[in-house]
């Protein structure tokens, strides 16, 4: 019985092994392969060109979005109105955010604007031009110096330029 079963197993497997599947119209299959290849070859350069054109734009857009996201979440606003112990106060954009996260940014802003601190109260005509440009650039970069006076300086600077 066991022997018979084994024979039957082998018989079926041998049958599959010995029977070669028929391939009707082999030429048609070759033609299909070649047609698909040719279609891909003609389609590919166009796609490549499109990718070459789109890739820098997509990268720039992605970077811009990442920058915007980071800025939205980790940006600080520095006020020059109420200095406490000679340190500029700053407010967090996102409530609950750890203050130390933005301390470095804050210090950088303070250092950069420190030079102009004395001049801020001067009239526009007396402002150091370099300081004006520096402040304006800083303002445009950060969009966070919400001091009204600096905004006025920027507007003035934009007007005279």
């Amino acid at each position, binding site marked *: 019985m066991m022997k018979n079963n084994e024979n*039957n197993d082998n*018989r079926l497997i041998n049958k599959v092994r010995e029977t070669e599947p028929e391939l009707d119209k082999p030429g048609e299959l070759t033609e*299909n*392969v*070649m047609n*698909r*290849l040719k279609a891909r070859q003609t389609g590919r350069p166009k796609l490549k060109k499109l990718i070459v054109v789109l890739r820098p734009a997509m990268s720039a857009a992605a970077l811009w979005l990442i920058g915007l996201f980071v800025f939205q979440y980790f940006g600080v606003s520095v006020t020059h109105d109420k200095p406490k112990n000679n340190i500029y106060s700053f407010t967090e954009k996102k409530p609950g955010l750890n203050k130390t996260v933005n301390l470095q940014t804050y210090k950088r802003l303070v250092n950069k604007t420190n030079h102009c601190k004395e001049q801020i109260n001067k009239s526009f005509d007396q402002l150091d031009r370099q300081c004006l440009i520096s402040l304006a650039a800083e303002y445009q970069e950060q969009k966070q110096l919400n001091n009204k006076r600096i905004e006025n300086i920027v507007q003035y600077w934009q007007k005279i330029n």
Partner: protein
Amino acid sequence: MTRDEINELIRKSRQNDFAAFQKLVEQYQYMVYKLTFRLLASEEDAKDMVQEVFIRIWEKLSTFNTNFSFSSWVYKIATNMCYDMLKSKQYKEKKQVIELQAGIHNPELEAGNVESGIMNRELAELIRFLTGELSPKQKLVFTLSDIEGLEVQEISEVTGLSPGKIKSNLYLARKYIRKRIEMTEQEDDDEKQ
């Protein structure tokens, strides 16, 4: 076709010579078709897979090392693509539909056409009967070993599976197939009684 002739066709194909590549397709398409038919147990799927395999070959031709056998390389690509297909969810769902439509049975035992030649459809049914319920890995190993006649070492080279894994999968596949045939024969005997 000699090895030099094949290498020459490969060299031309790499330079986007379609006529040369067409000769390679003509030369190897039946070998690929036979393998894909046996693994996928469907004429239509096998033909579709042949196309996919040659497109992959065209794309990867630059990576082929002409010091090695081209037919082995083609065989390896075809095997791995079939294996990926067998594992795919889409294929499993399709297989279930085919089984529901056709019903799994042993065409040879039922029809008693042991000696007569069997057509593609019947061959596909017989393959499905034998290997339909095996896992993709078992099916792959069984087909390459017992139907294609490859040695364990050759299967290892083609599939990247370790010899131990091949042997264990082969053992399970054979055990399952034996059990399946026994069950079918038992059912046939019961029906006769």
